[in-house]
């Protein structure tokens, strides 16, 4: 299909009936994607706003919470995601140029990196589970009602203690107290990274579909809009992470 050199004057098979030309179709689709990303900005924006308010309100607890998540894994994941953004950009470039093989490989690369990111995320979530840092307790039953965590020993108090041992400047905060406020930190941590990971999963699905079509050779210089749109989406998800990393992992690391 892609090998048959259609020109815009003829009817390209991928041209939808409501559009007059491939160019109009691509323009409209790309713009549509941007408008969609606008809604995504506002959706994450609601979370960011709420996060900011609580970060100001419960700063110390946020420091304690932030310190308990692994900055190393966060750093690694940032690099992984940036790398995947690069391969995605290259996939779009290859599609534009009509290099079918390169395009397929770059898409595979993006998916591998995306999967690696999700894998690391899963590991981090699992660690939090083990440490009893899953928020959302049923009132009165302690920090995590399911994970076998006891009600009276929220480990976050211990984190606060550790921080305190290293730095006397940090105010003394009781275990229970820290637990409650840090729980809000973890609520944000899981809500934000969870929503982000959810977007990654959707992106992964999109990429698989693109990969299939790319493998069949549907994309070429005439028609590569789906790859372009998938790319925009993937980069957006990357941008969200670029903000999440410092906001969640790097709150006042100087105190540790």
């Amino acid at each position: 299909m892609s090998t048959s050199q259609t020109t815009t004057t003829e009817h390209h098979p991928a041209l939808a009936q409501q559009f007059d030309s491939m160019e109009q179709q691509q323009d409209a689709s790309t713009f549509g994607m941007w408008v969609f990303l606008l809604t995504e900005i506002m959706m994450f924006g609601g979370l960011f706003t709420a996060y900011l308010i609580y970060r100001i309100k419960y700063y110390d607890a946020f420091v304690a919470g932030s310190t308990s998540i692994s900055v190393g894994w966060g750093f690694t994941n940032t690099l992984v995601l940036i790398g995947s953004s690069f391969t995605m950009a290259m996939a779009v470039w290859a599609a534009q140029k009509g290099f079918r093989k390169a395009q397929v490989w770059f898409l595979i690369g993006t998916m591998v990196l995306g999967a690696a990111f999700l894998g690391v995320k899963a590991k981090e979530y699992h660690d939090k589970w083990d440490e009893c840092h899953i928020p959302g307790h049923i009132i009165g039953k302690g920090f995590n009602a399911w994970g076998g965590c006891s009600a009276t020993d929220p480990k976050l108090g211990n984190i606060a203690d550790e921080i305190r041992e290293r730095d006397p400047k940090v105010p003394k905060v009781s275990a229970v107290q820290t637990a409650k406020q840090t729980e809000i930190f973890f609520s944000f941590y899981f809500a934000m990274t969870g929503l982000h990971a959810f977007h990654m999963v959707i992106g992964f699905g999109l990429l698989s579909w693109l990969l299939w079509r790319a493998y069949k050779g549907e994309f070429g210089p005439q028609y590569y809009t789906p790859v372009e749109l998938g790319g925009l989406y993937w980069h957006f998800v990357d941008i969200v992470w670029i903000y999440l990393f410092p906001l969640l992992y790097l709150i006042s690391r100087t105190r540790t």
Partner: protein
Amino acid sequence: MSIDKPVMPEKHYLNDNYGIRSWLLTKDHKRIAILYLFSITVFFFIGGLFAGLIRLHLLTPNGELFQADTYNRLFTMHGVNMIFFFLIPSVPAVIGNFLIPIMIGTKDLAFPKINLLSWYLYIGGATFSLITLLNGGVDTGWTFYAPLSSGYVKSPVIVMAVGILIVGFSSIFTGLNFIVTVHRMRAPGMTWGRLPLFVWANYAASLIMILGTPVIAITLILLALERGFHIGIFDPKLGGDPVLFQHMFWFYSHPAVYIMILPGMGVISEIVTCFSRKRVFGYSFIAFSSIAIAVFGFVVWAHHMFVAGISVYSALVFSLLSYAVAIPSAVKVFNWTATMYKGSVKMDTPMLYAMAFIGLFTIGGLTGLFLAALGLDIHIHDTYFVVAHFHYVMVGGMVTAYLGGLHFWWPKMTGRMYPEAPAKLAALITFIGFNLTFFPQFILGYMGMPRRYWAYPPEFQVLNVLSSAGASVLAVGFILPLFYFLWSLKYGEVAGDNPWQATGLEWETTSPPPTHNFHHIPVVTKDPYAYGEDEEVPVVH
């Protein structure tokens, strides 16, 4: 022109294809608009039923008809139904969906599949939230304030939140489709300065849909998580701040009232010009005031929270900005009035609705000034004054505009005229019933009757009885069109392409339009509302 009787076109979008599949899998924006028309009518009457029961209950002061719990569920379901399932999709998803592509001269919206998807999301989400009715409905009020909704009520709040979330995505996709279509799909010669004001208004409303709706989505997700898992973001027991919920909720829900009213304003601009046979007065001012309303609408939300415990300084800022939104609305009203000046006015049903809109919206808008005035709002906040104000804008404004638009474009949608006499009667009944229902509520509100009260002190009874009496009249006014519209589908006079002798691309194609809207994509050479250029003074009917 009245000599040769108009005939129905042979082939049009309604008879292009038959069968349930051709409707449920259609990608034609016109058919999707009809799907929306059916579904929002259903939800309108469900919501109306709840309203009727509320008014019936309030006939007596001591709450004798329903239990308090039932009453609370009634007003919540009324609010949710009317706002999320009727008002927000009403004009954009029905009339806008049908007309925007035709008005700008294109074959369809930019993304027909997404358009169909958004109808499915709408119907799916709305039906999903009606599941709560099996459990008696939700009793949080449509505002879902935490921590009441997150921890105290026993009704299925999460189901409702998910339902509204899904409908929210439907709204986002509709807005997205409109914006891209208006930007990228205009016919040759259709410049921004030639766009019909209806398109401008819907464009402005779409901006709010895509910028505001995602925020309510995330807010409802957090609320559901709070209720399900006690994550502590809104629950003060866990260190959360319930006022934050209000901020996030109103960040969407205040602009959302402009999603509801702006498209209605667009309808009025079309009707007033057509029935006055006049160019619109101050085209660019009306067009830009729509955008101004959409933008300013985003910076005034905390005027819903003046007594909620927000900072004094913040309250001052939000109050000041609230007045900024009043100005463009005033500009529109004055421009419509001026458009009628020295026109050639014919008072057909759509014009009656338009005139009612201008009057009622003026009252609704001006009473908004009461609520934005800080010292005064303290007293009337959360009273029936707010209820009356809101209904003047939403029923007196939006529903009136929607009905006006439906009458105006009914011949275009179905190819047949509605019967004029019962329609005029219905318009009159609606107007009288509406004022009788809601005007007493202003007085009740200033007297201090709080909203959402199942029982009230006896001195408020007379006004409540008046209001309930008005509601029964209003109900007749709303049910009447249902019958004569249905009747007209079979027996209505064949309308012809342009029964109103109106300008605008939608009147240049057949009624009903063909599946691809035009036989040839039109080229626009004239300004909008070019009345009076080739005028032979038509007297229709």
